[in-house]
């Protein structure tokens, strides 16, 4: 019970101190809107293309929203030593890191709904299988956050975390099937697509939003969940190894 008081308090504090600040809220709104507009204009097609663009825009909104935040909530706090306060609290490291990532996951989920709300006004979403979309959004948010966590605990400075994040994020836009199927990626590059959890999350969204998934949905769910577990435990191991000397 005491550990859960600490857990919720960390989530609340991060939301209050970082996520609910005007720059983050505006970033969370403007970024997905900009991506939606950009791909819609570029596609040159009518409003019917929104359904095919929506999975990619949802995924990119989550990816950028979550990974950017971890550099602040973890790397920045590590540098100003306030993270030590958390490491010294009688709360297990696993629960502590779940609390630190909880806010980012929630932020990612909220970001995902910005393009969905816009799409609601522009097209008919009646055929969308929401019962599949919702867990997919949550899993993409979790896997992207844990990828951000892995990056945040692998570097020492905030700028390094942001640079390193871009090293992953921008290739992921093109390799994970966000706006064109991975079958159209050159054969040589295609194996890389399968190394990113986002590929599986986006495939679920494509299936649930316009019925064009490549792999089976249960397999996608299993793989992305596996990625979440691996990324989290590698991050925890790195914290043990690098921060508790």
């Amino acid at each position: 019970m005491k550990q859960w008081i600490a857990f919720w308090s960390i989530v609340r504090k991060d939301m209050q101190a970082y996520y609910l600040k005007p720059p983050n809220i505006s970033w969370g709104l403007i970024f997905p809107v900009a991506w939606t507009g950009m791909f819609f204009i570029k596609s040159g097609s009518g409003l019917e293309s929104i359904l095919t663009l929506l999975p990619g825009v949802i995924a990119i909104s989550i990816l950028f929203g979550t990974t950017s935040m971890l550099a602040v909530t973890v790397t920045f706090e590590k540098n100003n030593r306030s993270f030590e306060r958390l490491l010294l609290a009688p709360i297990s490291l696993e629960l502590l890191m779940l609390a630190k990532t909880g806010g980012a996951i929630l932020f990612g989920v909220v970001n995902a709904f910005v393009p969905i709300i816009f799409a609601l006004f522009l097209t008919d979403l009646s055929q969308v299988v929401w019962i599949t979309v919702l867990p997919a959004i949550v899993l993409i948010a979790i896997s992207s956050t844990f990828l951000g966590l892995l990056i945040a605990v692998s570097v020492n400075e905030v700028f390094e975390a942001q640079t390193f994040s871009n090293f992953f994020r921008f290739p992921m836009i093109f390799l994970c099937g966000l706006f064109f199927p991975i079958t159209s990626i050159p054969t040589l590059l295609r194996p890389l697509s399968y190394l990113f959890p986002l590929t599986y999350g986006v495939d679920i969204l494509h299936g649930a939003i316009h019925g064009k998934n490549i792999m089976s949905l249960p397999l996608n769910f299993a793989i992305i969940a596996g990625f979440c577990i691996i990324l989290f435990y590698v991050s925890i191991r790195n914290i043990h190894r690098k921060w508790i000397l």
Partner: protein
Amino acid sequence: MVAQISKTMPTHENNPLIEVSELTKRFDDVIAVDGIGFTVGKGELFGFLGPNGAGKTTTINILTGLARPDSGAIRISGLDISRNPKAAQHLIGIVPDESNLYPELTGFDNLCFCASLYGVQKSEGIVRAKELLEQFDLKEAAHRKFAGYSKGMKRKLTIAAGIIHHPEILFLDEPTTGIDVASARQIRHLIAELQRAGTTVFLTTHYIEEAERLCERIAFLVKGQIVRVDSVANLLQPIQERKAMLISFLNGGSDLCDKLAVTFPDYEFQTISFEQVRVESADIINIGPLIRFIEEQGTQVTEARRLKPSLEEVFVRITGIELNSVGREKEKAKGS
């Protein structure tokens, strides 16, 4: 009188709350902590004194679970913290050498947050935060952001955060370094109050006067090794039996040392500075003939005062290190 008795005869050793033996920690080729061992009794104010880089912070980090020892055993309230640090962390409060609260939160919110980290219920945390803000004279700044606090206020709030959950043991790492005299005095007073209220305090400092004034027992740490652990009274005893005076001159006079040593063979003379000479003797120092002799040499004496035996002298005698000069360097570095 009670304080005097407790200083000469520590009563806590039979009831140790912290037990450390053969503790070693290495960073690559550097041995930061080299096989140290000590105990701290329940309710004791234990000082850990040493120059910068002696291994004080590393020891605190190991004792609190922020670093892992390479070897050795640590028991806190009977719990093995080297194997399971989380088990004992609810008993511990920590005030690090740098104020590390959240700059974007107010003083009040910082305290409530720190309380919740130890599982304190929200309503209880609010009451305790208000109580501490009042006690630490920070009530008026309660709703200001921590980033806007002065150094002294930051330090006080960091100490308040360290005790918000009523810990049995409080680790204080250099609590008065880099802050103004008034705040430092207030912090020392608060530390003494905490100990009177029953909290076991583990204090690291390079301010020897601070340790002497507050602590019951002191460990001298040099290059990762404890060179001496004893009560303040026992540490002072050998030098208390000797008498010492400091003679100051107008426009120099330290060159008189050799002549003084020849004329007064029962006394020992040491040049302190261009204008100061220290006189030491096993018996009472007869100041009249000394001053007359000096003035006959054409040097005017401006002051002659008896020196009280201090722990700094003991430290210098044991370790050969001028501790406060190291402290001043550290402060300069922090200030810049």
